């Protein structure tokens, strides 16, 4: 093989099917049933029979395991299955692991999924019996209890260091809500947001208010990944996985990243360096983005990390309608975790696919490239998709 370059992941695989259940604060069916529905919908969208599936990927927090899913929907023999940790940080990595396995010849048809009843289920932080001693011993006794508190701490420091304001965070919440208002599947479809509503809403953890926090949702989503050759025979226009990355920076601490030299440069920076190194285009060439938004403040941090602006400029970047349709970087065009559904970021993947198929309810004209990111502030992952 001397002189030959390793093929790598670039455009070697494509997402050819997406599926999802409805989203609601409470759905009657259990997580396993919802997972089956989403997976079968994605396979139907692709025009691929369940018996052809030989690879799976999901989150470690996913409670529907491979065995249960496989025997329920009738998968064939599985030769690759993978689960990724760190909650919403694993969303894009599910697709990345499938793409890697398929490009390496370990599998041919991969399904990624996430099913979660976070709307009707318990809030994870209320569990006081199963707390990991590291780092909970350093934070929870002092009342830093919830993800919102942990990220609010970074947000305050971010605002202090760079002069970012609540109006910048509102710009993020508003862009997501405006797109949700165009998307009948979104939980906030018929609920517009105003600046006055935002500025007078109750605090969750100052400086984060109610509208800085994602929804609590029941729902499930899935997508299907195959090789580029196989993709040409599928029912839908292929959406190619152009570049994919995970990111766990040196000396990082998930969620409570207070204990290193530079807490405001998080996993996004690490994932971005790998992502762009293997891409044929740059941040300036991204037509539309789906940026993980469990909290509004993660968006300016991610905009900096993925290179859409300089360090400390993420707040200012949101000004002037930059995140809206027609703006510099339209984002979270189905409403995101803030206003469509919070299913650990999987809805961002499906919306990225719809944008590149040209079927979004808030379509960016001629969108040909889309960045999808996973949770910032935890070990993360990201995908560059192209049509």
């Amino acid at each position, binding site marked *: 093989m001397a002189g030959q370059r390793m093929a790598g992941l670039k455009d070697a695989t494509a997402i050819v099917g997406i599926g999802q259940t409805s989203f609601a604060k409470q759905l009657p069916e259990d997580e396993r049933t919802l997972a089956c529905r989403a997976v079968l919908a994605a396979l139907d969208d692709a025009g691929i029979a369940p018996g052809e599936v030989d690879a799976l990927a999901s989150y470690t927090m996913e409670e529907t395991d491979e065995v249960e899913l496989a025997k329920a929907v009738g998968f064939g023999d599985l030769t690759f299955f993978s689960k990724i940790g760190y909650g919403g940080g694993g969303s894009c990595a599910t697709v990345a692991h499938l793409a890697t396995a398929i490009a390496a010849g370990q599998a041919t048809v991969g399904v990624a999924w996430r099913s979660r009843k976070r709307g009707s289920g318990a*809030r994870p932080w*209320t569990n*006081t019996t199963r*707390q990991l*001693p*590291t*780092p*909970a*011993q*350093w*934070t*929870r*006794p*002092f*009342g*830093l*209890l*919830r993800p*919102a*508190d942990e990220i*609010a*701490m*970074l947000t*305050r*420091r971010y605002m*202090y260091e760079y002069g970012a304001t609540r109006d910048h965070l509102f710009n993020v919440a508003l862009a997501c809500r405006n797109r949700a208002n165009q998307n009948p599947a979104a939980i906030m479809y018929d609920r517009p947001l105003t600046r006055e509503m935002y500025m007078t809403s*109750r*605090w*969750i*953890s*100052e*400086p984060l208010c109610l509208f800085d926090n994602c929804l609590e949702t029941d729902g499930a989503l899935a997508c299907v990944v195959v090789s580029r050759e196989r993709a040409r025979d599928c029912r839908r226009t292929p959406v190619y996985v152009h570049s994919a990355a995970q990111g766990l920076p040196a*000396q990082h*601490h998930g969620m*409570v990243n*207070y*204990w*290193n*030299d530079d807490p405001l440069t998080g996993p996004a920076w690490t994932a971005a360096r790998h992502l762009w190194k293997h891409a044929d285009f740059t941040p300036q060439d991204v037509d539309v983005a789906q940026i993980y938004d469990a909290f509004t403040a993660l968006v300016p941090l991610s905009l900096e990390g993925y290179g859409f602006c300089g360090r400390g400029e993420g707040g200012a970047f949101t000004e002037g309608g930059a995140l809206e349709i027609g703006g510099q970087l339209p984002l979270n065009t189905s409403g995101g975790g803030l206003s469509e559904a919070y299913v650990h970021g999987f809805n961002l993947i499906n919306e990225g696919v719809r944008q590149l198929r040209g079927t979004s309810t808030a379509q960016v004209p001629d969108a040909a490239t889309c960045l999808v990111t996973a949770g910032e502030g935890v070990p993360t992952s990201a995908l560059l998709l192209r049509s």
Partner: protein
Amino acid sequence: MLSPVTDTDGAPFWQYARQGQLRVQTCADCDETRFPPRPCCPHCQSFASEWRQVSGRGRVWSYVFPHPPLLPDYAAVAPYNVIVVELVDAPRIRLVGNLVSEAGAALNSLSPSRIRIEARVQVVFDADGLPQWVLERP
């Protein structure tokens, strides 16, 4: 209120805290401090460490005011403050804690208007040996 659920690496921190001492894990070979505690030094990979006492002086690096929904004990005193303190003796060591009016006082004992980033603080300990922080110039 939740008590620290300690692990092997963290236990010495809490033992010293119960004696009214703030100590930070320090590499016995290259002298670098590290937090949270861990089995070996990320700088020189040495497994030898010691617990070095620090002055307990620090500066507020950031702070939040949690509001409900919270666990019941915390909801009862909400909104309260949670701060991150950067130690003067070891600026990269930052500890999560609460800024209170005096040792042993409640999480909401200090007026929120007194709290700002860069404020100088000093460690104190409550009756259970939990570190707390008071303003250096009250």
